[in-house]
Every structure is written in C-alpha cells, then in structure tokens.
C-alpha cells in the first residue's frame, strides 16, 4: 500500500531581493509562511504556483515538506528548510529571524 503523501508548501526566492517567499492560499508569493497553502497533493500546489500572479518575480520554486503544528502552522521539516526559513543559526540578527514580526524558536538549536 503506498504511503500517504506528506503535506507540502511551495517556496521560492524573490527575483529582485533574493529573500525567501511562500505561496499563499490566495496564490500570491508572500514572506509569511503562516499563510502558505498546504496540500498533500503536489500537483495541486504546482497548479496554484503556475497560476500565481507574480510568478515572474520569483526564482527557484520548490516544494518542501512541512509538519502542521497544533495551530495549523506549516513548519518545514528538513533542517535545510528550517534554516532557510529563519536565517543563519550563527547570526540571529540576519535573515527572516531578524524580522521580529515572525515568531521563531532558539535558532542555534533548530
């Protein structure tokens, strides 16, 4: 029996600035991971990504596995994506983690 597909979100980098973006439920690319569109159907995410209005302004679109927190927050599973989401673990003053509107845990101990 095939394993059930795991939940995923789409991520990319902003063409102009390079920073990390996520594909929202509204089909927009946003820095806000909490509003990312989550699906276990990769084709469904890919279809939304293809339709995203600002698709031309992002690069390196990738689908990343997430685990859903109790509040529904889609949290990246792979360490690479956790670091990409937050910023360098050795410089917590840099990257998305430096944006205090985003909630993060202890970066060094990801």
């Amino acid at each position, binding site marked *: 029996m095939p394993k059930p597909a795991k939940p995923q979100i789409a991520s990319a980098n902003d063409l102009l*600035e390079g920073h990390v973006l996520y594909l929202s439920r509204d089909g927009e690319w946003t820095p806000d991971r909490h509003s990312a569109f989550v699906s276990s159907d990769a084709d469904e995410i890919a279809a939304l990504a293809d339709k995203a209005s600002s698709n031309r302004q992002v690069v390196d679109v990738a689908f990343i596995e997430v685990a859903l927190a109790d509040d529904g927050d889609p949290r990246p599973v*792979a360490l690479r994506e956790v*670091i990409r989401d937050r910023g360098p673990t050795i410089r917590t003053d840099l990257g*998305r983690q430096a944006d205090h509107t985003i909630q993060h845990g202890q970066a060094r101990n990801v």
Partner: protein
Amino acid sequence: MYSYDEFDRDYVKNRVAIFRDQVARRVSGALTEDEFKPLRLQNGIYLQLHAYMLRVAIPYGTLNSAQMRQLAMIAEKWDKGYGHFTTRQNIQYNWPKLVDLPDILDALADVEMHAIQTSGNCIRNVTADHFAGAAADEVEDPRPAAELLRQWSTDHPEFAFLPRKFKIAVTGSPNDRAVIKAHDIGLRVLRDDAGEVGYQVIVGGGLGRTPVVGETIREFLPKEHLLAYCEAILRVYNLHGRRDNKYKARIKILVMEEGLESFRDQVEAEFASLLEVHNGPSLIPDPAVVARIEAAFAPPPFEDLPDSDAGYEARLAEDEDFARWCATNLTAHRQQGYAIASISLKPVGAAPGDASADQMRVVADLAERYSFDELRVSHEQNLILPHVAKRDLPAVYDALREAELATANIGLIGDIIACPGLDYCALATARSIPIAQDIAQHFSDPDYSRLIGDMKIKISGCINSCGHHHVGHIGILGLDRAGRENYQITIGGDHTESLKMGQRLGRGFDAEEVVPAIEQLVQTYFSLRESEAETFLQVVERAGTQPFKDALYPAKEPADAG
C-alpha cells in the same frame, strides 16, 4: 602590485554594462530565469539559501588598501556590513539584491576588481602562496606567473565551457602554502641544475567527492612555455574530459582513467603541436608584457634595517600577550628587519573568514601605513600584512587588538578552516561554522592550544570539500544522516608539499559529540607523543590511526553469555 591597463579597464567596465542590461531585461521579463541564470553565474552571482551571493575574485589573494576599503564600502552600502573570505582567496557577500549587483560590480571595477569567472565551468581565479613576495624560503615571487595566467585565462574563448570548473594554484617556494597538489594544475617555481627558473607542473589533483593527490606531469617547464603547456593540458582535458557525468568531469578523473603516462603523452603532443604547427609563437608571451608584469611585482622599497628593533624587543619582554601574538602570527621575512604578520579572522566565537566593514578598514589603514599598501588573503581564511618592519609591530598589534583582530592562534587548533555550510550554502548537508565555533571555544585557553601545537582542523559542510577537510590534520565532514547532521572525522591529512588525504576513523558523530571527540583525539596525541616537539601529524604518521580509532570507538564489552 599589478595595475589594469586600458584593455583590462575597458573589458571589465564593458562586462558590467552588459550585465546591467541583462539584469534590466530579466527584471522586465524579456529574459527568463533559464536564460538569465548562466549569465548571472558568469558574473559570480549565485542564489543561496537566504539570498543571492556574490563571489568576488581577489587575484592570487593580493589586494591594496583602496581595494579593501572598497570591499568594506560594498559590505556596508549593499550588504549586511560584513564579508566572508574564502578558501580560494576570494570574498563573498551573502545578502546582495539583484538590482544592486550592477552597481556593486561597477564599484568593484572602479578599483580594478571583478567577479568574472568565479563560477561556471571555466578557469577560476588563480590562487597563490599568501606569503608571495615576502617569504624567506621563496625561489621567486609566483604572482607574475599567476597574473600571466589570469590574463591568458580571462575570457579565453576556447575554455569558457569546459567539462567542469578548473582551478590553478602557484607557489614560489618549496614549502607549499598554496595546496598546489590539490588543484587541477599546480605550479611550483623552481630552478634547474643550470640555475634557470621554471615550473614543476602538477596535474589532476583535487578534493571534493573524489580526493586525488596531483601528480607531476613535467619536472621542469621553462618559464616561457608556461601558457603553451597549460593550453595543451586544457585542450586535452577539454576534448576528452567526461561531459557525460558531472561527478566524473574534473580533470583528475580523466588523468586517473587515462593514466598519467598516456595523459602526459597527449599533452606533450599537443604542446609540440602548439609550438611548431599552429600559432605557437602567440603563446610565448611578449617579453615586454612579461617585463611589465614582473615590474608590477618588484619588491617594495624596503629600508635597510637591523635584524631586530629595541622597541620591539622591549615590548616582547614586557607584554605576554604581544609576545604570544608574535610567536604565532609572525613569519620570517626575506628582508632583514621585517616580518610577515598574519591577521587571524578566527577570534573565539566568530565565523571563520568573516570580517566586518570596520575591520576591513582597519586592516586597509594598517596596510597603507605599515605594509607598503599591500594585503593578502590566505586560503586559510586569514589576512596578511606581508611587509611589516619589526619596529612597527607593536603599533600594528595595538591597532589590531583595538579592532578585535589580534587573536594569537595562527597554526593552532583555533585557526580552523570552515566553509559557510548549511547556515548559508544551498549545497551543504550540515552546518560547519557552529562546529568550528564550538571547537574554538573549547580550546580557547591559549596555553592549552600552544601545548597542543601545530594543528590544522578543516571542516566542510558537504562532500564538495570547500573546507578542505580531506587535508586537515583533523578533518570534519558534515553530512545529512536520515535528517540529522552527522560529522565524519578523518585524521592524518596534510595540506603541504607532502600532501596527503586524511583517513576516516569510523562512524560519524552527532554535532554535540564532535568537541568531545576532538578532545579525545588530542588526549590520545598527548599520550602518544614522544616530546612536545612531535606534532599531532607526526604522531599519526608514526603511530598510525589505530590508537586514535581505539580511543574514539572503544571496543564493546563481550555480551554476557550467562
């Protein structure tokens, strides 16, 4: 130092203008990402985990104060206030915006710098001994050869799309500080029996997923044939290199598969053809061009100084910290009364190779005032003031200390090479910098690290080996093991003229187990060494790896049959 001529200036400025137009077309949508990506890579621009990354070439690791100040300005104006000096003597900026990159490249061009050929399957920035032009053991300054190679390889139309990237390193000394045996081509300046200066040519070395010690393809190559012989090597490689498999595409695989003798025969035939049949004479550099390049690297106007200086000696006697810094961070200079001063970019707690814009300016000021306006970047991710009069050493030290740049650990256990690892790099499988920080912190007692003595720890965050872990006395390779960072440890690597790859000791360690494992290796070394003069590497060579394996992986008690 070499200065651009009109051709160089026009070429670099034109390349910036072309790239500015390419960025505009990408932003407008006229170019797709697939079309644009190779264009940005040709200008040293990668996309990493958090942002774009710009890799700037520092030819053979030499720069002046104006260039260093410009690097500081770029860090402050367009990045996050710091830069990262790499194991290829380059500097990387981790946070530039695409739209700013043409302006950054223009600013680099203003000080005769660029980022061309710092990416892609081409001949990359030529590296050299970081003590070039200053070392007491030097046969000849390797930088004129490196500059000649830079001019030949820049935008060389035949070698713009090689099977894979291609790296050349040059040393002018029998004591190899440029790791030439781990390069696609390694060159060592030497004299033949008649006293003529030429090159030992080494080919097919490399680290990465298939570490190979380069082999000598020519014991002695006359100076005038440098370009023709390199062209012959590149032609054979370009023709026969494995383009079918990225992981087998480096020249080292070709040399291994063909065998050195067969490869040499092909190169020698191509070399002869180049000289005799085709347009060979154009590959023998115009003596006037060579003379201009050599003049650019003429020794600075050293003063005639006594071997030592009373003020320097007095400070040595009264200031233990200064004496410790001098003992570790100074190297003998070829000119009496002078020293080579290494500036450690490895203070405890810092990311190896990182320097803030303010620190860059301090170093630039010191170079201008005390080192004939010269600076070097080492492949060990430190900076060098190559020509400091001993009488000026107290002032230099005080200024470095003020800028938190006076860490006295060159060549000791805290002087760790570490790649950016998973904190920045899109290719990495594990973090490198936190491991380096933890080790440096654990061994931060200067007396303890001096007791350990000569120790090179090198850390890579993936199999690509940017952190040179294969040739570390202790090498650490970070991998992803079922979603967890896991670190393999090797010992016995050697990055010098007697280059050797380290031997893996056994299963990998979790991140928190690495420091205790290193401490265990150090304690084993202490228990084995016959005197304080016997280094860690010498003990590994004498006693083998088994005692270290036994220490790291004690045998399990036999199961109780009862």
